[in-house]
């Protein structure tokens, strides 16, 4: 894979990358994302009737919330140089069905939440340990995804797992100030992980391990430990998002959250996090998720088909990826 070549090419630039990322000098790239968002909203409000209503903004945020929570937790994985997990959908599906099964079996919902979160932490830790040992992150996450899907299908027999939404009153229907719970959690998780990434020693460690593994090793940091931690955080975040997604629905089968992996990847990429690590921000991934949801929403309101919306998502992702690479090179020369 050329990832390590890229890391090698970076060589000394790695430490500069870290400095640039941590000093947070406002640059074109830092402003590009919020500006894109503002432009999108303004253009949307002018051109699309029905876009700038409170109900529609709420719908955009709600659809961004699940993807956003996962994308924000995933950003730490990406920043630490472990690409992205290609098993987002399956992790979320396992957590959601696990929660549904527990609540359906009569377990009180707070206990079910705790059990699912602990279970997801273990699943994340397992993948993190495998990758820390030296297995490839892509293979490990894809294989873990297949195992999770297979296990879930075997346990549920491919049938719907349902529960009565009356049992989860807080998660399913509480809307403080008229705003659904997932949006609060999305904001909270973004703030917490943004703080973790930018203001704590662990955040610096994650960045350094991602930017230059050799330098991190020489400074006495354990890339292994960082890898395990980021996968545990990612897994817990995915579990929380999955619980919030299934609570209002009341059940699902193994196809639950199937498009999540692609949406999360799109959000992280649009947020401008470098896929080979060393730079990135959970907050920008959150904004990325909102931007992707806004584009999707604008296209739905303008009557575009599902295919056209997917193509638009793909085009945006490819353009952003290429632009970042080109800007990066221009900046380094």
């Amino acid at each position, binding site marked *: 894979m050329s990832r390590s070549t890229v890391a090698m090419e970076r060589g000394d630039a790695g430490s500069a990358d870290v400095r640039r990322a941590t000093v947070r000098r406002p640059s074109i790239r830092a402003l590009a994302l919020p500006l894109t968002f503002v432009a999108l909203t303004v253009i949307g409000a002018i051109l699309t009737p029905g876009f700038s209503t409170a109900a529609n903004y709420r719908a955009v945020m709600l659809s961004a919330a699940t993807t956003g929570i996962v994308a924000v937790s995933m950003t730490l994985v990406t920043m630490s140089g472990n690409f992205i997990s290609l098993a987002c959908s399956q992790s979320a599906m396992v957590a959601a069905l696990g929660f549904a099964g527990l609540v359906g079996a009569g377990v009180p919902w707070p206990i079910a939440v705790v059990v699912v979160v602990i279970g997801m932490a273990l699943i994340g830790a397992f993948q993190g340990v495998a990758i820390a040992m030296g297995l490839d992150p892509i*293979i490990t996450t894809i294989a873990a995804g297949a195992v999770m899907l297979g296990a879930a299908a075997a346990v549920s027999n491919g049938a719907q797992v349902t529960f009565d939404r009356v049992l989860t009153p807080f998660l399913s229907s509480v809307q403080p100030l008229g705003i659904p719970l997932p949006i609060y959690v999305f904001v909270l998780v973004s703030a917490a992980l943004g703080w973790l990434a930018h203001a704590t020693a662990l955040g610096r460690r994650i960045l350094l391990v991602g930017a230059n593994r050799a330098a991190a090793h020489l400074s006495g940091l354990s890339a292994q430990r960082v890898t395990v931690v980021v996968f545990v955080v990612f897994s817990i975040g995915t579990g929380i998002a999955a619980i919030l997604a299934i609570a209002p629905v009341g059940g699902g089968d193994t196809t639950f959250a199937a498009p999540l992996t*692609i949406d999360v990847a799109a959000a992280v990429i649009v947020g401008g996090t470098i896929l080979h690590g060393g730079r990135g921000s959970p907050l920008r991934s959150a904004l990325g998720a909102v931007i992707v949801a806004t584009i999707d929403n604008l296209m739905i309101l303008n009557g575009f088909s599902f295919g*056209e919306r997917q193509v638009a998502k793909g085009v945006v992702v490819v353009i952003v990826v290429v632009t970042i690479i080109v800007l990066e090179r221009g900046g380094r020369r």
Partner: protein
Amino acid sequence: MRANARRLRQYGLPLGLFVVLYVGLLLPAMSPVASAYAILDNLTVLGLATLGVAFCMIAREIDLSVGSTVAVSGLLAIKLSAFGAPTSILLTTIIAGAYGAFQGFLIHRLRIDSIVLTLGTLILLRGVAYLFTDSALRLDDPADGDVFLTRVGGVFTVASIIAVVAYLVLGGVLRYTKPGREVYAFGGARSEAIAAGVNGRRVLITVFCVSGLCAGLAGSVSAYQSASANPTSYGDLLFAVFSAALLGGVSLKGGRGSAINVFLGVGVMGCITAAFSIRGSSYYEAQLTTGVILFAVVTIDWLLARRWASALARRRLELRHTWSGDSSTTSGRLTI
């Protein structure tokens, strides 16, 4: 002796796995002819797709977009079916190959990581598939596809013969020609290869072109076989492709693997799929088993590689003691 150890790791593990699964899982349930047919049947879609991706893996690159490419190719082949089956399949394969070559060119030109770009094209091409249609596309005359299902010699179909020919041709190119050699050099020890005059652009364009060609052929032939194509299909092909390649002994770290490895890997996958489907268990249980086997094999391979690397490091140290110079026997491929 070290060459033997290497050959054992490259071919022995997958061959052993294949034999164990074939004798242990498949033969008790099926006749030898039926089991051979079931395994060869796998060669058309999974086999071809894996062969293409294996080219990329040997060059130490990755093509994540293979599933979307196969899906789009299937739809394209049905759209072009007015020209007749051979022309439609040929055209689709050429278009997919040209697209792959362009992707390789971009990866070289922009010096972009292939994982990153193909993650983008994975999303993009899936959207393109939905642009063709929201539901399934069908052949006007389903009988057009029957020829690809015709059995030849008991164990082959016309489709699997096409795949076997592709294996022989591409495997030969990889092993016996200069461009094929360059793929190994580029993947195994990139900077040394470039220093020695290997044209990186040509290698990248070649491997991604082959990946596109294989995906195009797989998608179009399989669309004719089933007389339909669906924009939702092949979403999980990537897992099967990686499993087949890795179980067969192709290394993600580049420079290791051959068409025989790919064939063995696809055979292993074929054993698992056939054994589970004949027992009437769900497709997901086969996936679960594959995932567990993959974890096990990758871990064993990793342990072997580590042991091998430490033995090599020791040897290098001894050499340095003897000659007080750097040993010339080390190659980039061996460092883990």
